């Protein structure tokens, strides 16, 4: 069984980078302030909320990519890869929701608000959960793979539509990047953010590889059991 050492390397690197970003968040990046001069401590959530959210979108690309690859080639491995990518996406999506809700509570005073971006992210969460419900309720193996691929592609197309509708509908959610005058970050804050983002992506890659290895193990165990039993 060949081992892909990249998974471990990425895991360690990602761990180091995210840990560094943790410290930089609190000891290096300058605090931001409300218009009245009081410190906006809750802004610190940004450094991890946004990397996780962006990682979730990026991982969904792989769901769609492997979905397309599966539909073209009909090789089971691509379906497995798409499934694992979606699993990692779900993990990040749930983390995004959880940290986002905590931020909302601090800044807006409520746990939840039907604000366009929250709404659409909620919809995305439901769609990703729907992906697994669909997998679980389809019995035939090939059918399950085809349906899951198709739905994964649909979810991936739907996500940017949701994203852009939030920029179009009046939004009270902060737009940090490319939002015109007054948005954007100081260099130290940007560096902290980028380190957290890169680290999170590395971790995402490591998670994906580890789960893939587990899935391969499982298949070999099943195959061996059949061989012994038969």
């Amino acid at each position, binding site marked *: 069984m060949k081992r892909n050492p990249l998974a471990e390397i990425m*895991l360690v690197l990602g761990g180091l980078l*995210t840990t560094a970003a*943790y410290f930089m968040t609190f000891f290096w990046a300058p605090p931001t*302030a*409300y218009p009245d*001069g*009081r*410190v*906006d*401590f*809750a802004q*610190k*959530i940004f450094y*991890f*909320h946004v990397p*996780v959210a962006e990682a979730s979108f990026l991982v969904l690309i792989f769901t769609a990519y492997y979905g397309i690859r599966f539909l073209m080639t009909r090789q089971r491995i691509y379906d497995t890869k798409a499934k694992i990518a979606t699993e990692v996406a779900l*993990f990040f999506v*749930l*983390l995004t929701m*959880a*940290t986002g809700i*905590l*931020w909302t*509570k*601090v800044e807006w005073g409520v746990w939840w608000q039907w604000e366009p971006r929250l709404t659409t992210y909620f919809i995305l969460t439901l769609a990703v959960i729907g992906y697994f419900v669909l997998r679980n309720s389809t019995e035939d193996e090939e059918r399950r793979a085809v349906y899951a691929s198709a739905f994964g592609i649909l979810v991936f197309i739907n996500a940017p539509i949701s994203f852009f509708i939030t920029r179009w509908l009046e939004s009270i959610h902060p737009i940090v990047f490319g939002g015109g005058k007054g948005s954007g970050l100081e260099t130290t804050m940007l560096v902290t953010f980028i380190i957290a983002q890169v680290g999170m992506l590395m*971790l995402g890659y*490591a*998670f994906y590889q*580890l*789960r893939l*290895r*587990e899935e391969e*193990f*499982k298949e*070999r*165990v099943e195959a*061996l*059991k059949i*061989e*012994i039993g038969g």
Partner: protein
Amino acid sequence: MNEIYSTVIPQAPYIIGAYGLIWVALLGFVGMVFNRLRRMEKELAVLEESLKRREQA
């Protein structure tokens, strides 16, 4: 000064909560996967052994 930092203490639990959550989730995920991998490796070894024994017999 006190006025400026008045927001830090009441906001702290939420920030700690968010960071703690991410920590626990990441570590939990890695731990879970490694745990399952180790178990499966053991199972695999046992199966391969029994297969080998059968072939010898």
